[in-house]
């Protein structure tokens, strides 16, 4: 009996641990877009407990989470961290959506941001060092550059734009490093799959583990978001990975948009990952009556998506009925797909262009269109490298069209300007607090100059230009996307999308002729050689008559005379003669 109790005592922590066991959820969301394309989103969410054991030494137990992801975060006091890679452009106008379904995806290139805990008693520089360490570690993990090249490239003013996703009593610092030059390729997908508990061999990740297929899509986004367990509030951790792509459903030669899982992935619906707590395929049905799918969905939900109430079909894969099957969808009686003449636009859309681009300066023109019925509050933020110098006194905000007219001061309520300190590697960050009138386009213009950078600071492909990180519009008045039956809230605010991104911008810098330094070196060497040669000559030479051999030949008598005189003069005279010659 005592042995049994002893055994139970041994098992108790294990039972407790298994009760708070890690959970893994996976979902595949298909979203047909009005322009004949399909947005495909994989989401893998893992909940993990913050148990670090009760022994004297710190322990960490990992069942579904990868230590290679969590250990560097743990070691560097990370509270939250998000990495995003985006390749390709999201067409806000044609898709009718302000951005991809994965709200965590940035605007373009790579991006890392996170909240780090300030450890008590540590020096203020410690948290910065932790950030460099964790971004380097994850950069190595994801086969990409995520760390700042210089410490000045870290942006710390985005804390209000990306607030911590949960309440905490801890003292946190926000870090943000944009890497707009990064792209998304197979080497970034490999580690992503390796981090998943299903490793791309079973469950929905099996569909994703085909770089040749998923990387041939137009728009691609990959990212992770990790929220570490909070010891102060005893909450568990969560990490979510997503992969989104946009496929063109219309064949190159024209035709209908009919498609299926097998057509998209060349694979049927795989077996469910045994450790998964949920595994679903969702389809956001288009707002057309002739849309059909087979087999029929197990359940349906309603969701507000960018200000529109949408119907979502859900197939639960856990019951195993769909394994090895296909899921087809099509538009009844659709012959050749014709591109719609009129497209419903998203409530808010944004674009950034460059006007009057000269070698030395130009103007950023940011157009923010509010298609909703209501005035909106938002913050528009930009990050520039140090060599972009904005003319802050010349910034203007104006309404292009619509009934509402407002003065610049009403539209642009406040501007937070954090300048860089050239010529050191540093960043300028700007936050414009804007009022977006209903049914109007706000135009924000920011003139700028490009400072000269050293020829060693140019990129290897300097003529291509340098990407600027995408601008981000943060909406301050969103109402969320879950449905309330009797809500009377204005539609355009019903969305979960807090951030809307512009595309990144390629800025060309005046590039020197890189052979010039060599020309200059050669020229200055020549000048120096001539100068020093002349100085040397002037200092060491002496002008005078030379008694040459010809003269000796001309008059032998004179020669003997000269020789005699030379002998009389002695060795000093001889020396003089030699110097001259």
């Amino acid at each position, binding site marked *: 009996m005592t042995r049994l109790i*002893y055994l139970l005592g041994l098992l108790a922590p294990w039972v407790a641990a298994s009760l708070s066991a890690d959970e893994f959820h996976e979902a595949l969301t298909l979203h047909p877009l009005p322009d004949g394309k399909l947005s495909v989103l994989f989401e893998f969410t893992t909940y993990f407990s913050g148990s670090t054991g009760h022994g004297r030494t710190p322990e960490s137990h990992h069942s579904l989470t*990868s230590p*290679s992801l969590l250990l560097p975060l743990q070691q560097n006091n990370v509270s939250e961290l998000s990495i995003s890679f985006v390749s390709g452009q999201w067409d806000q106008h044609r898709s009718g959506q302000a951005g991809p379904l994965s709200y965590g995806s940035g605007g373009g290139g790579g991006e890392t941001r996170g909240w780090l805990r300030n450890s008590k008693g540590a020096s203020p520089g410690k948290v910065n060092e932790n950030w460099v*360490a964790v971004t380097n570690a994850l950069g*190595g993990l994801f086969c990409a550059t995520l760390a700042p090249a210089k410490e000045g490239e870290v942006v710390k003013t985005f804390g209000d734009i990306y607030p911590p996703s949960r309440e905490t009593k801890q003292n946190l610092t926000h870090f943000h490093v944009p890497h707009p030059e990064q792209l998304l390729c197979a080497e970034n997908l*490999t580690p992503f799959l390796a981090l998943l508990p299903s490793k791309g061999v079973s469950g929905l990740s099996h569909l994703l583990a085909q770089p040749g297929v998923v990387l041939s899509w137009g728009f691609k986004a990959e990212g992770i978001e990790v929220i570490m367990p909070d010891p102060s509030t005893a909450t568990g951790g969560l990490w979510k990975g997503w992969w989104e792509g946009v496929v063109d459903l219309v064949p190159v030669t024209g035709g209908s948009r009919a498609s299926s899982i097998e057509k998209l992935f060349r694979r049927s619906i795989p077996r469910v990952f045994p450790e998964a707590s949920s595994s679903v395929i969702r389809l956001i049905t288009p707002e057309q009556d002739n849309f059909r799918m087979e087999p029929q969905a197990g359940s349906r939900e309603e969701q507000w998506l960018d200000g529109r109430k949408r119907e979502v079909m859900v197939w639960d894969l856990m019951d195993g009925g769909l394994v090895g099957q296909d899921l087809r969808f099509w538009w009844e009686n659709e012959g050749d797909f014709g591109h719609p003449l009129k497209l419903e636009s998203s409530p808010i859309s944004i674009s950034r262009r460059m006007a009057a681009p000269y070698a030395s300066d130009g103007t950023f023109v940011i157009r923010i269109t509010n298609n909703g019925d209501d005035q909106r509050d938002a913050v528009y933020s930009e990050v520039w490298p140090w060599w972009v110098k904005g003319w802050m006194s010349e910034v203007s905000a104006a309404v292009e069209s619509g009934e509402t007219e407002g003065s610049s001061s009403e539209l642009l309520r406040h501007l937070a300007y954090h300048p860089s300190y050239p010529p050191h590697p540093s960043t300028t960050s700007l936050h414009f607090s804007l009022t977006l009138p209903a049914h109007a386009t706000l135009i924000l213009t920011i003139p700028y100059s490009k400072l000269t950078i050293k020829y060693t600071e140019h990129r290897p492909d300097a003529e291509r230009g340098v990407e600027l990180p995408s601008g981000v519009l943060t909406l301050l008045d969103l109402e969320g996307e879950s449905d309330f039956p009797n809500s009377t809230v204005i539609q355009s605010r019903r969305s979960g999308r807090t951030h809307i991104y512009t595309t990144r911008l390629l800025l060309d810098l005046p590039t020197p002729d890189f052979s010039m330094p060599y020309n200059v070196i050669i020229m200055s060497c020549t000048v120096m050689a001539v100068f020093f040669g002349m100085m040397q000559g002037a200092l060491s030479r002496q002008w005078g008559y030379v008694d040459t051999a010809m003269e000796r030949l001309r008059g032998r008598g004179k020669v003997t005379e000269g020789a005699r005189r030379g002998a009389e003069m002695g060795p000093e005279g001889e020396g003089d003669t030699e110097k001259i010659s």
Partner: protein
Amino acid sequence: MRFAASLWGLALLLAQLGLVLANQVHQQVNDLFGHNGSGSATTHTNNWAVLVCSSRYWFNYRHMANTLAMYRTLKRLGMPDSNIILMLADDVACSARNPFPATVYANSGRQMDLYGDAVEVDYRGYEVTVESFLRLLTGRHAPHTPPSKRLLSDASSNVFIYMTGHGGNEFLKFQDNEEVSAFDIADAIEQMSEKRRFNKLLFVIDTCQANTMYSKFYSPNVISTGSSAIGESSYSHHNDVDLGTAVIDSYTHYILQYLETLGKTSRATLQDFFNTYDPARIHSHPGISTELSPTQPDGILVTDFFGGVVSVEVTPKADELDPLRTAGSAGWVSGRRRGARGIGEGGQSSPSPSPMKGPPMRRTEGVRGWANPTERQTEGGWVGNAALSAVLLGIGGYLLIDPRTDRPGIKRE
């Protein structure tokens, strides 16, 4: 008391039996792994490779393909990804001009995708610079450089360096704006040699006037080979019409054609490899330099460099420390590539020869490294002693120690 005496008798009998059995097993294991028949005078216990494509832009597709074909060959011959440092100056696989996204082919029929499903590019794009290459070789990194970007080789590593790009007399162009000179590489290799970062080194380069690139080497145990003599160009082999560019260089094409015939257990030597050089087919005169190596190429297996076939040093069981105790300090977790990648490496600017990064097979060396070598006796004796003491300890433990008592000082990861 009689009972105890008989137990002792039994223990001694068991110990004898254990001794005999352990000796036999040890002999077998030694025969199997100890000297895997390699003709090399000195043995190595791990392989490392640095593959460098120093050219940028789509029209240099063939340089990326050269490097990736080497990468694929190394992986095929058993080298783990953690021991291959792959540097690609551009990303042709996901270039907008690539009609076959996320793939790189080295033949016109596009038979084999070199990019594959699990490629790991350690340095890509702007990261590929002369500075990062020389830092990689010499092991002088910024403090937080992740392990995946470090060449963690040691004195028993065979290191293979492959470079391709556009070069000239004693230089190789990196990206489009800088060059590494033959002197720089020679000095870097000398530093590697001084820091005992390799046992043997094979340097292969495919570029114009490639043989000039190793002409300045002066460190021992280096074998070098290049694609073309001074004054000669190295040419591409053929084009692919759909890609619209040359897919592979001639020299690399022919050496790969040869390497493709080798398997993990191949007995071919470097001399066999060099014998396949045919200047008429390659359209240039490949060079071979063996003067710095005391072992001639016919004494070195190709798989000593291309692949993860290593001779495992068999150490007796008793030499191993208790894994539970050793794990806390160095971490078994970091033995695996992915595990090692993410872990912040602190301020290790010049990491000690780390046995932790590599195939799990090398675990034993790691443990041996920590054991005190002066305490080692003849191996068979150790096993016998170990078996004897194990049996005695077991019996003693059973008689004396309460098995429920936790052992003190045990750390788990």
